[in-house]
């Protein structure tokens, strides 16, 4: 995945995931907008990925429980997955979260959910074909495709941009060689 300095990886890590604390935590109330207070066992808090994933895998001692348990974020809830299954191209991923696939990949490292992985990779395949189509067709960014293109997540946007640039560069190169001969 992204390097230490990758801005997109850092932004992915900033997205919040619901998690539940399994222990009483004195003095950690600021995580739950309760500065100075404590967190009781069983509290549900939304924590950014960079904090929650490490807390969820951390075990203090050989036999003890992890400090908190993670839940699936709302953006990959069953409702969204059903929508993706029904029509991958109609879902506005950007509205859910700006780094959708990366978030899903990070979260699914910690869950065993083969089905979600399948749904998401199928979604990506379908959408990628559509994106390539729009990128190669210069008029694609206007009209009815506008809604679809606005709903792309960050990775899909980069895909769109590079597909678009490559077709432009190709055309330019063909034009150049023609002129010379």
């Amino acid at each position, binding site marked *: 995945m992204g390097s230490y300095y990758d801005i997109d990886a850092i932004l992915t890590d900033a997205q919040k995931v619901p998690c539940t604390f399994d222990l009483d935590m004195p003095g950690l109330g*600021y995580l739950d907008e309760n500065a100075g207070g404590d967190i009781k066992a069983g509290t549900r808090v939304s924590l950014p990925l960079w904090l929650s994933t490490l807390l969820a895998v951390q075990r203090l001692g050989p036999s003890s429980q992890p400090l908190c348990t993670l839940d699936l974020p709302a953006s990959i809830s069953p409702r969204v997955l059903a929508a993706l299954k029904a029509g991958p191209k109609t879902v506005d991923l950007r509205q859910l979260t700006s780094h959708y696939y990366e978030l899903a990949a990070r979260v699914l490292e910690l869950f065993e959910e083969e089905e979600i992985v399948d749904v998401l990779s199928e979604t990506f395949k379908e959408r990628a074909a559509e994106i390539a189509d729009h990128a190669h067709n210069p008029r694609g960014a206007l009209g009815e495709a506008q809604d679809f293109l606005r709903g792309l997540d960050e990775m899909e946007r980069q895909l769109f941009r590079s597909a678009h640039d490559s077709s432009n560069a190709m055309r330019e190169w063909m034009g150049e060689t023609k002129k010379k001969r």
Partner: protein
Amino acid sequence: MYGDHALKLIQHAKRTQALAHLPHYQTELVRETTREVRDLDKDVSNILAPFQGSFNPSSEPATACSVLVNHLCMRRNKRCLLAYHRVRSDKLEEMCWSGKDVLDQEQQAGRQGNGEGSGMASEVGNQSSLSPEEDEYVRQYGDMLAAYKGQWTDIDLTGSLEPPRDLFIDVRVLRDAGEIQTEYGYACHSLTILCQEWNY
């Protein structure tokens, strides 16, 4: 919540990547973030002070957890700070290589910002958008690049990669240089600076 200032920095960095020029250095946010790290470090030392070096995480899970959270926040802030500065320094290096006069350009951008905005912008508008450290970095990087290029006098490393269409190129005369004899035998007046020189 800890890490919010750092996140703002990263959002700035994200925006910077898409821009052609370099926006102002976020002195205030950087300072806030470093202050946060210092506070967190102080907190950790305070928490661990009573244990006098014999802290056992499995006997004190709650304390261990708050130390861990503090530590993770510090690590996060460090990563954000480093990434922010890296995006900017990459941009500056790119400017050096493409042969733009970074310092000059930044001052211009600053002046433009001053004209458009008011209040905040007018305060910082006259300064360069680089921090003093970045200023120094650009200067030294420029020197280093010049020294590196100096090793090959017949190749311009930062020159254009476009091959010329013709053996002859148009030359605009900037300064009177008197009589000049070229290898083709004819002499022309005052030929000094070639914009795009292709060396065979």
